[in-house]
């Protein structure tokens, strides 16, 4: 088995601030994902990475940067936080294409 950890659990920032969310997995999975979950809108893909140093944009990448410096970690940066970005950010990973996907506990972002 394995686990995905996300830090911080809660993140409070000011409008316009640059904020970084971190994700670590010990499954030794190749592919990692960042999703955003808004109430009433379901989960949407922000960025994904199929291997170390690879980055691919999802449907919602504008306003975000990502970094995959190690196989086990995947970071997401909100480049300039906006009040309409208050949401839960979920990290996920899986071994390969079409394999079962596992999720971390999430980071809840609040922008003041």
């Amino acid at each position, binding site marked *: 088995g394995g686990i995905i950890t996300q830090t911080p659990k809660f993140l409070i920032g000011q409008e316009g601030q640059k904020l970084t969310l971190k994700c670590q997995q010990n499954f030794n999975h190749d592919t990692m994902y960042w999703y955003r979950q808004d109430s009433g809108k379901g989960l949407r893909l922000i960025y994904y990475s199929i291997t170390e140093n690879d980055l691919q944009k999802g449907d919602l990448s504008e306003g975000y940067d990502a970094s995959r410096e190690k196989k086990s970690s995947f970071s997401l940066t909100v480049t300039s936080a906006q009040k309409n970005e208050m949401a839960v950010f*979920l990290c996920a990973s899986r071994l390969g294409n079409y394999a079962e996907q596992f*999720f971390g506990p999430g980071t809840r972002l609040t922008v003041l």
Partner: protein
Amino acid sequence: GQQVQQSPSSLVLQEGENAELQCNFSSTATQLQWFYQSPGGSLVSLLSNPSGTKHTGRLTSTTVTKERRSSLHISSSQTTDSGTYLCAIDRNYAQGLTFGLGTRVSVFP
């Protein structure tokens, strides 16, 4: 793009009742997963079932690939089953999952 529709949007059960949740999708799915999310919680993978029937505990999923639909049957519901059930299908290549909006299940004693 791919779309995933779940029904009903919400469901109220008395403990012990059975429930059937539906998931319809707009294109062929190579992978289909059912997830459970407790209020304020993360997603827990329940079943990975791109075709056929799979069981785990009191849950049974049946996916008919040609008809682009999947169902999740909960038998003998318990109060701890309360939460949101999400269906998701695989996008092309490694591009992650496309999710439905979920079915919110409330089980009362």
